[in-house]
């Protein structure tokens, strides 16, 4: 299947994730840090309930993962790209599960812009992450791991 078609399928799956939760209360600016934390936890819990059966591969299907891996490995052939990841204080490999919280005490690895430009665009609150050897789709507002490709990075 062509890359464009596969990436369109990925974008539709991400959009379904967004649609699933569009009625949930969202974060808003506040002076009270406990309000931010409470809203994040409530949002994460509500999403977990809505996606109670979610598992690795629901969004990164085998076909989608294959195309992502092709782009990732091709981009990582550049030494500057590998250096960007190293400079971003890469975290050790963790045991990831879908619907678990992103470990917020760990740093975020810089995602090389030359990789981002070659991947499907995401809604503003979603982000690609690199956690150890895994390539992760994160809901940055709920701080949830939405899906991931295990072993995507060498």
């Amino acid at each position, binding site marked *: 299947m062509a890359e464009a078609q596969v990436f369109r399928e990925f974008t539709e799956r991400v959009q379904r994730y967004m649609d699933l939760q569009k009625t949930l209360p969202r*974060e*808003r*600016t*506040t*002076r*009270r*840090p*406990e309000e*931010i*934390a409470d809203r*994040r936890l409530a949002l994460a819990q509500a999403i977990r309930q809505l996606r109670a059966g979610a598992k690795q591969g629901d969004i990164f299907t085998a076909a989608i993962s294959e195309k992502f891996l092709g782009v990732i490995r091709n981009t990582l052939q550049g030494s*500057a*790209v590998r*250096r*960007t990841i190293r*400079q*971003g*204080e890469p975290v050790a490999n963790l045991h990831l599960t879908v619907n678990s919280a992103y470990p*917020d*005490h760990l*740093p*975020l*690895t*810089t*995602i*090389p*812009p*030359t990789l*981002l*430009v070659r991947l499907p*665009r*995401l809604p*503003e609150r979603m*982000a690609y992450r690199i956690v150890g050897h895994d390539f992760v789709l994160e809901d*940055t*507002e709920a*701080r949830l791991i939405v899906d991931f490709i295990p072993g995507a990075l060498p």
Partner: protein
Amino acid sequence: MRSLRRLTFALVVVLCGRVLSLPAQDVALPLNSGSVRFAAIGDMGTGEPAQYEVAQRMLQFHQVFPFTFVIMLGDNIYGGKSPDQLQKKFEIPYKPLLDAGVQFYGALGNHDDPNERFYKFMNMNGERYYSFKKGNVHFFALDSTYLDPKQLAWLEKELAAAGAGWKICYFHHPLYSSGAFHGSSTELRTVLEPLFVKYGVQVVFAGHEHVYERIKPQKGIYYFTEGASGELRAGNLKKTDLTAAGYDKDRSFLTLEVSGDDLYFQAVSRAGVTVDSGVIHRSMTVQASAP
């Protein structure tokens, strides 16, 4: 070069129930009428005593150089992100400055929770990247951990619309650095520098390396790294041909004043020692002094 008026002061301030005797301090900033005055701190959010001591020094400096806002160069909150940690690593150390009406404008670092953008005291208005204007200075705060095409398109549009005033960008990862731990973020440079050059950005601030460094102008742009306002990697600055001045012996912060076509800067250590100072003219010449 315009001569710098130098003020000398000695203060005793009461903070956190303690009386601190502070040594005399020179202010190498002109305090011109109508100028834009601000400070820059990076990699500060440890909650450790060193961060508090830098904050106290900033307060002392604020008494004689009343800066109105602070730009935060990322790693605003290290480690745990619970509400009490946010208080310990931000609200308490900077409370005297917040109480004095000083505003903080955050940029996200790799140790930050993206949800800091919802924290009103960081003035990000729920955005990972944003711009604001003070006097004749346009500031652009970027999220350099995640420079996606949408952010780059936004930056180009904002820079193009910014007009003729000063253009200052700040974010976490330094495009040029002589720091031994990370060094220059060359790949980020390949996407950002062409925009900076094209649209006339004059000055860029970053953190990430836990030292202070001023870089010799690169393609007409001045780069500062201030990543030692809480964390420190002592001895980690391996001065290179890039280095105009640097300091890695203790924590530090930057104070700045933009007056017309001049940007004055002064880097101050936790002990109150000026470790670098000078002025940048918009004609792109610099006269500076570093001890």
